[in-house]
């Protein structure tokens, strides 16, 4: 059992107390009825209950931003909920939770994907990169800097997804014209309509690339 791993205790409690976010995380991650106990105990208590209910917790180990994480989770938990509610990485945003908006975009094995449609249990041995993992220490990733330089956001809700998508688009290298960049970024919706500035930000990074 991985209950002493940072991955399990990290998301649920703050200094041993249950945070609001941690509470909902546990409620989502573990079946209702065993949610009001600290994470490690919840995992232990959940085991026989869940086994009887034909849906035991599953152990999964993967890397997030280079750090190994181990979780014991209900197979229903998406990578998005695991990141936000179990691992405390709330930079990744939940927009639609249906694969339709791109706000949650992260990288798995260096490819941009949607964690709201990814079951966390399916990530055994995989490497996940989130918005928290792209800066180099205190130095922002060039795409982060370019979003600031060009005001690539207003409310900011879509921004971490936009940046993760843009990092991949620059790396993929296939989109060069404005229309190609717009097409490549079309899986990331922005309710504030920051699209022209996002386009400028991406072009700045590409110009620096060449």
């Amino acid at each position, binding site marked *: 059992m991985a209950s002493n791993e940072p991955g399990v205790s990290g998301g649920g409690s703050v200094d041993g107390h249950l945070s609001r976010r941690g509470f909902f995380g546990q409620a989502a991650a573990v079946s209702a009825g065993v949610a009001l106990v600290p994470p490690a105990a919840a995992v232990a208590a959940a085991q026989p209950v869940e086994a009887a209910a*034909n849906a035991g917790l599953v152990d999964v180990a993967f890397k997030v931003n280079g750090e190994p994480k181990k979780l014991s989770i209900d*197979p229903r938990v998406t990578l998005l909920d695991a990141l936000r509610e179990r691992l405390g990485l709330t930079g990744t945003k939940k927009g639609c939770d249906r694969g339709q908006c791109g706000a949650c975009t992260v990288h798995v094995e260096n490819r*941009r994907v*949607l964690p709201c*449609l990814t079951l966390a*249990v*399916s990530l055994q041995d995989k490497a996940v990169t989130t918005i928290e993992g792209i800066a180099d220490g205190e130095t922002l990733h060039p795409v982060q800097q370019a979003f600031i330089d060009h005001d690539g956001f207003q409310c900011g809700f879509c921004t971490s997804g936009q940046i993760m*998508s843009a990092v991949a688009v620059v790396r993929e290298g296939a989109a060069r014209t404005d229309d190609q960049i717009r*097409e490549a970024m079309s*899986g990331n919706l922005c309710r504030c309509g920051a699209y022209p500035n996002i386009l400028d930000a991406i072009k700045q990074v590409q110009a620096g690339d060449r």
Partner: protein
Amino acid sequence: MRAFDYAAPSSVDEALRLTKPGSAFLAGGTTLVDLMKLDVLTPDHVIDVNRLPLNGIRLSDGHLRIGALERMSAVAAHPTVMVHFPVISRALLLSASGQLRNMASIGGNLLQRTRCDYFRDVTAPCNKRQPGSGCPAQTGVNRTHAILGSSSSCAATHASDVAVAFVALEAMVVVRGRGGDRIVPLEDFYLLPGNTPQVENQLGPDELIVEVRVPVSPLARQSTYLKIRDRQSYEFALTSVAVALSLRRGVVLDARIAAGGVGTKPWRLRAVEDALKGNPAMEKTFSDAAESAVDGARPLAQNAFKVTLLKRTIVRALIDVAGVR
């Protein structure tokens, strides 16, 4: 989401052995997880197939062979596909988004479920989701629904783009069950709704799609996919057309055409193909031929525009691929 147990086998035999009533295979999850969250699909057992050795994109024995687990993005960008089968690459690149194409597999794409809103809403009746409960789309919201192949039981479109390209190119799916492999033409793999819209294809619950095979042909090299939609990107088709042409001295020698967004399955348009053959490659030929595309169409209150739109989509796609005006 309902509770389920999870297994991740590493061989096809093991995956097939794990199937039982209430089991579902998980590939990219972009259909399955979405519909599980909506309680439209409620498997008790999820069998993750991503560790199965069903990869590879290669030419052999006169066929392009695509492993069922190849991702949409990988197939679209593959040099062989781009050069020999541009219609496949284009249909994929006009599908979904960059993120979804990195996740979604070719096998899963062919088995994606309809986007009919009633199907996705468990509080609504729907014959496909709950046989015998009725089809509210017949008299309700049906702007995006099918005009071809529909019945009074169901008018939902099949939403895959690449399946339209595959049907035009006479692709086959290789299906593996405990008893071995079957090879089924994709066009026949899909079934019309009739009175049983819940049965969408020939796949048994204990069978896997392992491969898609597309015959190599001179036609496929001169091919394209045109998709018309409400917004320019990241949207399903209102109408779409896959065309492949072979021309000699300005005359159509042979043609393959299929349509999407209009049928309850990817819709091969043989009558249009026949009307093109032997005639000069020009707009008049194309528009005359396109007339027969909508024979037997059964438009509903809000989607009659697709009758005209389909014909125009065919003409424009033919003009594009023939390089004429």
